[in-house]
C-alpha cells in the first residue's frame, strides 16, 4: 500500500514511520498541503490513501482536501489532526474526507481507521 502523509512536523513523520515499520507499506511524506497536492498531481493513481494534518503552512489540510477533491482526486483522504472540535470533523466530512483521526492516536487506532476506509487489513 502507498500512503501519502502531509504534516509539517518532522516528529510526526518519524512517528508515522515507526508505526509502519515492519510492514510492507510505502510512506511518502509531504511537508504541507500544497506539497501533498503536488505529489498527488505527479501520480494521481499512485496512492491508496492520503492523510492530511489540518494546521500546516502554505496550504492547510482543509485547503488541500478541497483542492485535491476539486481537481478530481478519487483517492480516499483522511484528516489526522489535533483539531478535535466536532465542527471541524463535520466540516471535513461534509467536504469529502472519508475519516478523521484526532491526535494523539496510537497504531491500533490509525490502522483500524485505514482498514475501515479501505476495507482491508493494514498490519
Amino acid at each position, binding site marked *: 500500500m502507498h500512503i501519502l502523509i502531509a504534516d509539517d512536523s518532522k516528529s510526526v513523520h518519524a512517528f508515522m514511520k515507526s508505526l509502519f515499520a515492519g510492514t510492507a507499506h510505502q510512506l511518502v511524506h509531504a511537508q504541507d498541503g500544497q506539497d501533498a497536492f503536488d505529489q498527488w498531481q505527479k501520480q494521481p493513481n499512485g496512492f491508496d490513501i492520503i492523510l492530511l494534518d489540518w494546521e500546516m503552512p502554505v496550504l492547510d489540510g482543509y485547503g488541500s482536501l478541497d483542492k485535491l477533491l476539486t481537481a478530481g482526486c478519487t483517492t480516499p483522504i483522511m484528516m489526522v489532526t489535533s483539531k*478535535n472540535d466536532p465542527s471541524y470533523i463535520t466540516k471535513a466530512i461534509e467536504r469529502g474526507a472519508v*475519516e478523521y*483521526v*484526532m491526535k494523539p492516536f496510537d497504531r491500533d487506532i490509525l490502522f*483500524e481507521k485505514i482498514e*475501515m476506509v479501505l476495507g482491508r487489513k493494514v498490519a
Partner: protein
Amino acid sequence: MIAKETLKIFADLILHETGIVFKESNFYQLETRIEHILQQNTMTLDAFIRGVITERRADLLAQLHDQATNNETSFFRDPKVFQSLFAHVMKPFFETKSGRTLQIWSVACSTGQEPYSLAMELENYRLLKKDASYRILATDYSQRVLKKAQDGIYTQVEVQRGLSAVNLVRYFEKLDNRENAVDIRWQIKAQLRSHIEFKPFNLLAPAWRLPRPQFDLILCRNVLIYQDPENRREILKKLSQHLTEDGILILGCAEAITNLPEIYVLNVVGDATTYKLAPAARARTAVA
C-alpha cells in the same frame, strides 16, 4: 512474586463468586491483576489477603472481581458481526414485524460500547425508517464498568476505537470547549442513552430477575469462554428461556455451543455465527 498456593486461593474464590476460571497456566495474569490492586491501594499482599479472605472487605472483593473480569472492549468490536446482525437480524425484524419493538439484551455490556454500538446502528436506520422501535437492556456483573457505561463518558482514545467520525459527531458531545487539548472526554448524547436500560446482573445467580422476560436478540459475547463447562451449559439453558420464538443468540467469535442440540441450532447470518432455538425449545416458548 506471589506464591502459587496463594494464587490458587484467589482463583478458587473468583471461581466460586463469579464463575470465572483461572487455570494454573493463566496464574501470571491473575498475579498481574492482584499486583495492580495492591498498587492502587498501596497495601501489602498480607494486608490484601487478610482483607479479602479473613475480613471479607466488600471494597477489596469488588476490586478483585473487577480485575478478574476481562473488560477489554471497543465500539463495533468485530465490525462484521455488527454488519451481519444489522443486515440479517435487525433490519428484517422491522420489515416483517412492523409495529413491534425490537428487544435486545447485551448480557455483559462492560463499559457500554456494545449496547451503544447497537443503538448507533439502529438510530442510523431510524433516519430512514422513523417508526423502527427498539429497547436495549445492558447488564454487567461489575458495578464499576456499569457506572461508566451508564455515564457514557469516554476518553478521546476510546472514542476512536472502532468508531467512525460520522457516528462520533452524530452521537457524542464533547465535554470540554478547549481546542486541541488531548485529555478531552466525550459523552454519548442523552437521546441515544434513553434507549438503553443498564442493570447489574450476575449470570451465576440461581434465579434471574430481568425487567423484560424475552428478547429478540441476545448478545453474550466473550463471557462463556471464562466459565467452566458446567456453568456454561447452565447459562446457555437459562438464556434460551429468555429468547423469543424466533430470537437470536450470538456468542463471541471464539465461542460455540456444541452440546445442547435439543435447545439450540446453528444459524449463520452473513459473517456472524448465531444460534436459534431448536424446534422443541421453540415449541416450549410458544406454549409459554
